[in-house]
């Protein structure tokens, strides 16, 4: 009996000791510029001891929709909080039709957000409706890794809202994964353009991403490029620093990425840390007559007055230095909408039907932020 008592006591003392020890090791959360529903604080995994942790703010603004501010990530409870993003937003959604006209600027109107309820954001699937027009979902994201019989399923926290842009709804989605990856997507849905229901067009969301790795200034951007040394079996990867403000084109065969690094930030193995902006196109990326659509990537030096994608050419003229400073990345995605019968039909002079969501987006992927993934035992 006594032995049982000792064992029981030892167990609870051990639990208490470990939990207080874990609390001791935690780095304190950073002070944030938001509170209440606008503050997202999410540890992973959601159940059990913490491995990684996101802390960020969101804001809704007429026109731009759902904005992300101040995204911090922690790679371990005892690790420092790393500042990643000052501001992420959709700066413009440019929509030219194939016949040359019309050419819409959907962020050029102060459109509001649609309302969101439990049908959009089911609580039983991890959804929480915030402020009546934003959905937060904490959910399983599928396989994180698999090694024969060993396996780990990842998790993520997702914020999304839908811009009510006349006949269209644009779903603006931001995903923060347990492995430090940020995903940004825009999904076009709702009704085809009245009077031009079957005319092909392209929705080009252009994101403005004020990435401030480890704060600012001291950030630089490198152009990641893969080259197959043809004819021949070898390949080469290069990452030259981009010295001046510029616009650049993405190349799928070159796996082009914009890699942001901080002059002082290395991981525990003394390897330089970066975040890589990697396009996730669905089918392709378009270019149009307008100069600001001729590049997929832009790199500018931070200027609080420069928020509009359609003015990008003027922002880089004349080009300023973008090394060891405060930088901003811009990325243009494309949704090529070739209307189909599934989109709807004409009934008594009105279009009846809905276009299913068509996505385009990007990934911000950490490189040497961890010493190794903490999700492998």
């Amino acid at each position: 009996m006594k032995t049982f008592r000792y064992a029981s006591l030892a167990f609870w003392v051990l639990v208490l000791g470990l939990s207080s020890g874990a609390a001791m090791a935690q780095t304190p959360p950073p002070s944030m510029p938001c509170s209440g529903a606008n503050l997202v604080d999410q540890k992973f995994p959601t159940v059990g001891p913490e491995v990684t942790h996101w802390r960020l703010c969101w804001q809704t603004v007429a026109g731009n929709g759902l904005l992300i501010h101040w995204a911090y990530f922690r790679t371990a409870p005892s690790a420092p909080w790393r500042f990643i993003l000052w501001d992420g937003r959709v700066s413009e959604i440019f929509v030219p039709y194939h016949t040359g006209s019309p050419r819409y600027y959907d962020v050029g109107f102060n459109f509001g957000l649609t309302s969101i309820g439990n049908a959009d954001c089911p609580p039983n699937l991890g959804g929480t409706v915030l402020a009546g027009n934003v959905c937060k979902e904490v959910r399983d994201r599928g396989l994180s890794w698999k090694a024969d019989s060993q396996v780990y399923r990842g998790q993520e926290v997702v914020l999304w809202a839908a811009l009510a842009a006349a006949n269209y709804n644009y779903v603006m989605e931001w995903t923060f994964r347990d492995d430090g990856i940020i995903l940004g997507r825009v999904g076009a849905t709702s009704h085809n353009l009245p009077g031009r229901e079957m005319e092909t067009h392209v929705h080009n969301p252009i994101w403005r991403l004020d990435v401030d790795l480890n704060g600012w200034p001291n950030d630089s951007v490198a152009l990641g490029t893969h080259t197959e040394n043809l004819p021949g079996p070898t390949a080469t990867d290069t990452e030259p620093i981009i010295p001046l403000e510029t616009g650049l084109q993405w190349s799928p065969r070159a796996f082009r990425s914009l890699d942001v690094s901080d002059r002082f930030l290395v991981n525990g193995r003394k390897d330089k840390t970066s975040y890589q902006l990697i396009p996730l196109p669905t089918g392709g990326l378009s270019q149009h007559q307008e100069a600001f659509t001729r590049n997929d990537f832009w790199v500018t030096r931070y200027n609080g007055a420069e928020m509009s994608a359609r003015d990008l050419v003027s922002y880089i003229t004349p080009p300023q230095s973008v090394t060891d400073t405060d930088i901003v990345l811009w990325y243009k995605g494309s949704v090529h909408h070739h209307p189909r019968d599934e989109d709807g039909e004409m009934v008594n002079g009105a279009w009846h039907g809905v276009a299913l969501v068509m996505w385009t987006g990007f990934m911000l992927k950490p490189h040497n932020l961890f010493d190794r993934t903490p999700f492998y035992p």
Partner: protein
Amino acid sequence: MKLLWFSFIPVSKRVGFSFLSALTALVVFGALKLPAQEDRQSEPSTATERRALDPLVAEERAYAERLARSDTQVKKLLGETGIRVISVEPTLIKSESLERVDRTARYVEVVLFRPEGEVGARVTVDLGRKAVAQVQRLTSSQIPMTSDDLAEAFQLALRDAQVQEVLGSDAKSFQVQGAPAEPNPSSPENLVTGLPLRSTDPKDPCAKHRCLELLFRRGADFLSGPSVIADLTAKRVYVKRRKPQ
């Protein structure tokens, strides 16, 4: 009485007891350590403290707008009458480093527009100091359109015979989509909405003017009529029959 049983622990079990004592000390140490850690945290001391990006309350919104409109530089730029408020939003001012950013400073960005002359201003108001911190001139193309523009465009369109023909006898029952409020798809009401556009053809007035294409909705469905483009700069409406697709 329950504590007394510790006194009767056999010698053979004292090693285990020592282990327990060490763990107990760890718990006590952890418990003592926690408050000190909390002191170091830089979180606000009270849950009610307003942070820089927390949504504006009505009083803050009204006050920021009043400060912006009464600023000398703004008055010089826009005048004092016929000014529209485009947006009023909390904003965060970026300083030279992350550590120096004031997370609680309440700044508000007010965007104003005067349709006459088509000029605007982005005004940054410091609510804490009750002063305007910055004024930036905006050109016509930098000013987002709002439900005011939509209402004006619809009034222009209603004068057009072709638009009246398309909308029928209940043309005037169409309501203007309000921003930031959203249309209710289940509502049976008639709604007019619009999309800003810009032409690349230099001969087209909409290459430079503020133009809005109007779309008409009955309940959940949009009317598939002619293209109705309102040129708000020239105060004209262009109605074009669609080419067959």
